[in-house]
């Protein structure tokens, strides 16, 4: 199952070759997440409305390889934006993907931009 992880690689704004048009801003819950399909990838996208910031990461939780992170609860730990997996409450930084309450592998994160009320996610391929 680990091969699932191989298609998810952290992408920075500089790496972006394609800005994928995902959905309307209003399609996403405020201060919560939803899942976007891009080719064979599942990407969790979170709208931190309180800070007017968006984050994106792989939908698969590296703990048990289930496609669930978009259904997790968002928040922050000492100012670091995070998501808690709904399966076992593993928490991950949405800034750098680091597992904040354990030693799991980091999750891949992706840049998000908003233009004309539309959410775009950045991919390198």
């Amino acid at each position, binding site marked *: 199952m680990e091969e*699932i992880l191989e298609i998810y690689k952290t992408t920075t704004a500089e790496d972006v070759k394609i800005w994928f048009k*995902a959905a309307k801003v209003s*399609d996403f819950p405020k*201060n919560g997440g939803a899942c976007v399909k891009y080719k064979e990838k599942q990407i969790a996208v979170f709208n931190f409305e*309180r800070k007017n910031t968006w984050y994106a990461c792989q939908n698969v939780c590296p703990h048990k*390889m289930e496609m669930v992170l978009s*259904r997790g*609860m968002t*928040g922050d730990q000492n100012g670091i934006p995070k998501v808690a997996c709904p399966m076992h409450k593993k928490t991950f930084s949405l800034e750098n993907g680091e597992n904040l309450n354990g030693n799991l592998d980091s999750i891949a994160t992706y840049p998000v931009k908003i233009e004309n009320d539309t959410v775009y996610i950045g991919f390198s391929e």
Partner: protein
Amino acid sequence: MKKIVVIGNGMVGYKFCEKFVASEKFKEYKLTVFGEEPRRAYDRVHLSEFYAGKTAEDLSMSSATWYEENNIDLHTSEMITEIDRAKKTVANHRGIKYSYDYLILATGSSAFVPPIPGVEKEGVFVYRTIEDLEAIEAYAKKLKSEGKAQAAVLGGGLLGLEAANAVKELGLDAHVVEFAPRLMPRQLDQGGSDILQAKIESLGLKVHVSKQTDFIQGNGAIEGLQYVDGTELKVDMLVISAGIRPRDEVAKECGLEAGLRGGIVVDNRMKTSDDSIYAIGEVALYNNMIYGLVAPGYDMASVAVSQITGEIDNLMIDHIDMSTQLKLIGTEVASFGDALCDSNDIDAIIYENKRSGIYKRINISKDGTKLLGGILVGDSSDYNALFQIYDTAMKLPENPENLILGNRSGDGGSLLGDVMDLPDDAQICSCESVSKGAICGAIENGSCDTLGDVISCTKAGTGCGGCKPMVKDLVDATLKSLGKEVKDTICEHFEYNRQELYDIVKLKGYRKYNEVLDTHGKGDGCEVCKPLIASIMASIYADTANEEAPIQDSNDRFLANIQRNGTYSVVPRIPGGEITPEKLIVLGEVGKKYDLYTKITGGQRVDFFGARLDQLPKIWKDLIDHGFESGHAYGKSLRTVKSCVGSTWCRYGMDESVSFAIALEERYKGLRSPHKIKGGVSGCIRECAEARCKDFGVIAVEGGWNLYVCGNGGANPKHAELLAEQIDNETVIKYLDRFLMFYIKTAAPLQRTAKWLDKLDGGIEYLKQVVIEDKLGLADELESEMAALVGNFQCEWTQAIEDEEIMKRFNHFVNSEEPDDNLVFVPLRDQKMPEHWK
């Protein structure tokens, strides 16, 4: 730099190193440690946990790198065979020599093997090291494969009983053979031993007392024990646990003064007859005694360290306390002070309850002023308090029997009164010798702020752990006395506890999470405070989980329980477990239509598994069209009220338990609370509904219902306690309204009713005063709040499928109609299950 050589790396040898490292003069010394076992020091007190799944590493006293980090040379599997006192050197079994300035003998003891003919036979073991346990385990395995299973343990003392339990854990029939007429002869009197024996025999162990073994039968391997009285016991294995002998060979050989029956003589500085050599632990003969407990060994280590470094003139106390409190084969046993005292100068007060397996004895001075010692079997919860009274020679109360019979005046006061009344030098943690003064001082001088701080800085409670409740009480009381309230804040975003937040939300009328966070919190919130505030708002405004979905617990957000592969389970409500055949057929049809794994739950309903997120609304539409509604199986809310069939059918039934269970489930269904709530109604005292394992349980008796509250099953099962007797249906509902609402308003997050009651000052008696006597004058308010919640109930799944906005939540993708393509199911007994986690 001075050289210190430590011979022996057991618990006491390790403690010596630990204390030395903590000394300010540590840098002036170089420690070299020799241990003959292959691994570094481990916790021998909890050795039997090795069979319960603990590894040697779990039992280890230190991390693998501890010695290296502290610049200590540890030589494992190395035996010191010679001490040359004139040259101040030791030599190992290979003849390599090491010089020392100070030598520490911490060689401990070995199992004493009595000179019974036949002890050399195959299948005879001692119980001392991890290697012994491994050998016993291997032999037990071999026996079982040959269809043999009888094993005896020679010795009914503390360690012997531990060994017997370990042998039983290995799947053998365990026999305890004791020479004395009773078990634990050093700690217990006959009455205490009888209760202990009955208790452990009920668990399947066999006890043979007053048996002296003449020889061991068998040709090559053991076949049985031949007793002196002519009888015999056929066994396939024998574990000897008949006491200890100090490991004093190498010390004796170099001419150190030794006792007649072994042990190296030490003074109160732990010094042997050679000024440069100290002995500590079970090899040391102090006051002409060998002390086979870890606590005095630790004290000796401490004394030796301070004598060598010269920091303080710490001397070993004259009278060493041999009090013990432990759990043996699931039975609490404690003995303190002069427990067996038979002289005429005492009065013994004895309480014996064979039905519940409890024996308590206290020995009181003739003048009735002092507690001299005592024994507790079956329930040692009073040990800490009794020990303090004994140890600090506190004056006894007028009715000393209350010390073991409990305070029967009903005011809920503790035996000891206030823990803060103890003198400063009262020893709270005897394993680590920590006094009350040290614990309170650590907070008062500002170095500690929390229980965790105090434990790591004083080490109190890190040994057997028996003193922890008292340490916590002292920490809380000291913090309070300094005006530092013990704050149970919910998370980093709010400086409030749940009850305070409940009051804030209610008072200010907040309706949105962000309003509460903006005015009373900080940051972006988290997975702790969001669902907590959602739950509070639900309890105040009768909100369903569809209100502000992103702050609801992740199961509530999708109105279903997430399962192993990220699919969900579906549980419709079946009140009281009563269902018509027609509705049962509907459930079957729905399960078949969506290909769901189907199972009956413990709460008398049906659970469907394997529903994809996008399937949930379709399944629920079908169920709702046929008259079902949400079972709230996903919620921190009322789940079910389980019932037995009651007087409608049962020939023993006293009342209609099904009818009442349905009424209660309909009343409280979906009631959002700090944790899940379960109920039960039984039609008679046979209790087929298992109502006393629930948060509330109602049992029909002559003249009405008995109402029990605050029970649960789960990891820490607890029976519900009696709140009221022989009351009618209306009164049950009135009391339940008050009880549930009081719990909802005051409990901590994720605290079930049993734990809540446990923490409630005054316990069940106080709860009775609040619920029945309305001591707080809250009854009307609690009842009207509950009435509002009951009156505003809505099925949240009905609400969901009627609202297009809510339905959007159940698409797996926000930009595609496709379902999750990652799911893999495999067949299982004509149904399906998720593929195994890799």
